[in-house]
């Protein structure tokens, strides 16, 4: 069986400058491929070559076994549909007329559009939610609406291979997800789609294959799991990625850390007092930003404990449902007294974990950050006021409050800037 699209040793670009250097790609039916890569990696150039806007300089592009350059254009139009990144239409065609243009490769020159064409257009208008604009002029629509019309045109074209060049740039979030599901739905039977995406997570969630381009070559091609690795993302995007998992679909989910902050922070030791999941996000953020995070006493069943273990952090832990033992309290005090900073999250405090915050008396109060997101300024206190009193005392002594991870990070930076504990 011949592949729907076969790209071999493709070299292409502008005048003397080759943007694409020996690209290989094999696309079979029913694939939905997302192309990722930084600016200048050749994503759009690649699509332009496939859409025949740019010439193949070297190598070959075969569609159903036929060389791209040998395909008559009408046949090419039935094989490949294209949604451009941007489009300025200078004349006020009706939306219906624009979508009908997608049928052009199917309509003989001396014939008017037939019933089948009208049906395909009506269907595409409905699917993309632009039916209500059908009679309006394309020039009167917003950027996002216009983009949906162009997607409708490509769907009406009913081509085997659909090319999308950052099709969602101006489209509302809810339409984005609707349209990308629609495109994935359309990749059935003998069809396939290739899209350039800016949003890594959108591509990972919907595409079954990702193609990572870097400096004009294929850096990786495969399932999102295989492509979105820490090394690939660091090398290609020059970011410090944190890889989580989409809780619903299980595909990788990429968070990005601000790379500038990484080297300055890396030598600080931070003790994190948390529990009941209140510290998980902060823990990940700080660890990925490069701080050396130590976790105060956590129960082995606590979700914070599991996150800390998955990050490979140093943790002092107790078996489930037991109070903090004296031995572990002393260990924590030792840790706190040597740390650069200590952070307490909004963990509910009872007598069982009270030693966790009592340990904070062993560090200069100005080095303590109370991280209280959303819930306001109070911690749930099940110690009859003892915990609140202690924390208030710390605040009076100079402990600071932060309400977001960003605030925490900037507080930490202020210290590393001034070199000591002075705020």
């Amino acid at each position, binding site marked *: 069986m011949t592949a729907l699209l076969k790209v071999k040793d493709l070299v292409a670009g502008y005048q003397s400058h080759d943007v694409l250097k020996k690209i290989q790609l094999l696309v079979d039916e029913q694939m939905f491929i997302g192309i990722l890569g930084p600016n200048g990696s050749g994503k759009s150039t690649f699509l*332009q070559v496939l*859409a*025949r*806007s740019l010439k193949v300089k070297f190598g070959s592009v075969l569609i159903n076994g036929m060389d791209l350059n040998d395909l008559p*254009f*009408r046949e*090419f*139009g*039935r094989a*490949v*549909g*294209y949604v*451009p990144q941007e*489009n*300025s*239409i*200078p*004349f*006020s*065609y*009706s939306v219906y*007329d*624009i979508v009908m*243009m*997608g049928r*052009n*490769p199917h*309509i003989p*020159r*001396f014939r008017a559009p037939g019933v089948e064409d009208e049906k395909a257009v009506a269907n595409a208008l409905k699917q993309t939610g632009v039916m209500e604009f059908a009679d309006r002029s394309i020039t009167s629509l917003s950027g996002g609406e216009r983009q949906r019309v162009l997607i409708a045109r490509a769907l009406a*074209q009913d*081509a085997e291979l659909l*090319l999308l060049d950052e099709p969602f740039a101006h489209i509302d979030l809810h339409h984005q997800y609707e349209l990308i599901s629609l495109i994935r739905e359309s990749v059935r039977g003998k069809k396939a789609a290739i899209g350039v995406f800016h949003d890594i997570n959108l591509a990972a969630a919907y595409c079954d294959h990702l193609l990572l381009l870097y400096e004009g070559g294929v850096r990786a091609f495969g399932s999102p799991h295989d492509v979105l690795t820490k090394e690939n993302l660091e090398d290609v995007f020059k970011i410090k990625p944190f890889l989580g998992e989409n809780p619903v679909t299980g595909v990788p989910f990429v968070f990005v850390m601000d790379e500038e902050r990484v080297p300055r922070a890396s030598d600080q030791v931070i003790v994190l007092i948390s529990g009941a999941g209140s510290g998980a996000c902060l823990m990940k953020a700080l660890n990925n930003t490069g701080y050396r995070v130590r976790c105060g006493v956590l129960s082995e069943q606590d979700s914070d404990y599991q996150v800390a273990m998955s990050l490979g952090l140093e943790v002092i832990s107790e078996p489930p449902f037991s109070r903090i033992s004296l031995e572990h309290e002393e260990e924590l005090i030792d840790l706190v007294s040597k740390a650069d900073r200590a952070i307490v999250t909004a963990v509910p405090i009872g007598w069982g974990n009270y030693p966790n915050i009592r340990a904070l008396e062993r560090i200069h109060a100005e080095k303590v950050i109370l991280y209280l997101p959303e819930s306001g300024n109070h911690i749930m206190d099940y110690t009859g006021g003892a915990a609140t009193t202690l924390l208030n005392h710390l605040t009076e002594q100079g402990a600071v409050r932060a309400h977001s991870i960003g605030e925490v990070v900037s507080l930490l930076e202020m210290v590393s800037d001034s070199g000591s504990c002075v705020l």
Partner: protein
Amino acid sequence: MKIRNQYLLLIISFGLLALAVLGSVTIGPVPVSLSQFTGGGTGSQIIFDIRLPRAIAAAFAGAGLAAAGTALQALFRNDLADPYILGTSSGGAVGASLMMALGLMALIPAAAFVGAITAVFLVYLLASRDGRISTSVLLLTGIAVSTFFSAVVSVFMVFAGTNMHQIVFWLMGGLWNTSWNDIPLLSLIFVPVILLILYSRDLNIITCGDSETQTLGIDPHRTKLLLLGAAAGITGIIVSVTGSIGFIGLVSPHLTRLITGPNHAILIPGSLCCGAFLLLIADTISRTWLGELPVGVVTAFFGAPFFLFLIRRREEL
């Protein structure tokens, strides 16, 4: 408006155009009524030998210029394009005036045709960058090419000797010389005009963007060359008969688009009708009340302000 109603309107318009042609021949410095048409006297001679061929020539030339203008606006993706503004007419003038200077009157149409085609491709090549054409670059290139060709025409005029005044009058663009002999040549424009109508779907798609032309099943280079050639051919034929008449090709598509919208299947026939009306009216006015002022002067008086209005209306150039 439904497409069927548009075609109905079109048929009515062409009917009105035919009536207008007949009506215009009764108007002139000497009033002649239609009843004298078959009389065989002087009245019949004036109508049949002088005014009727001239009216038909005006209608054909106006229709052709409008069709060429419509096609150029689509191919350049710019509604300020027009055979006169883009230098197509002056390209034709170079060819025609060369033949006049050499005294080779029979070769004027062919030379005008070659000149017009050269000009349109020259402008296209010079103004496009990576297949894109910005309005300002297009207009400036048109001016530059026009100016250059006008200079070439001046050179020919200097060397033309006794034929010089002929070139001068012809350049101003007029229909006073037209006779039945010119009608067969002018009718040739309908070959490229019909080609343009047959390619109206392609024109629609070409106006909508460069990148998707191929994926919508059109060979962009071959189609553009063919259609540019058709527009230039129309212009060349008309220029060789009437000299350069400006702005009909600019104004007609604009007026027609207001009624029909931009779909070329209906816009081109509509434009044909509109252009024919405009030039017929302009020529009737000039020969009746303006003492045979060249009609190119009349169209420029009305067209140039319209052109400025279009430029002012644009947000960016």
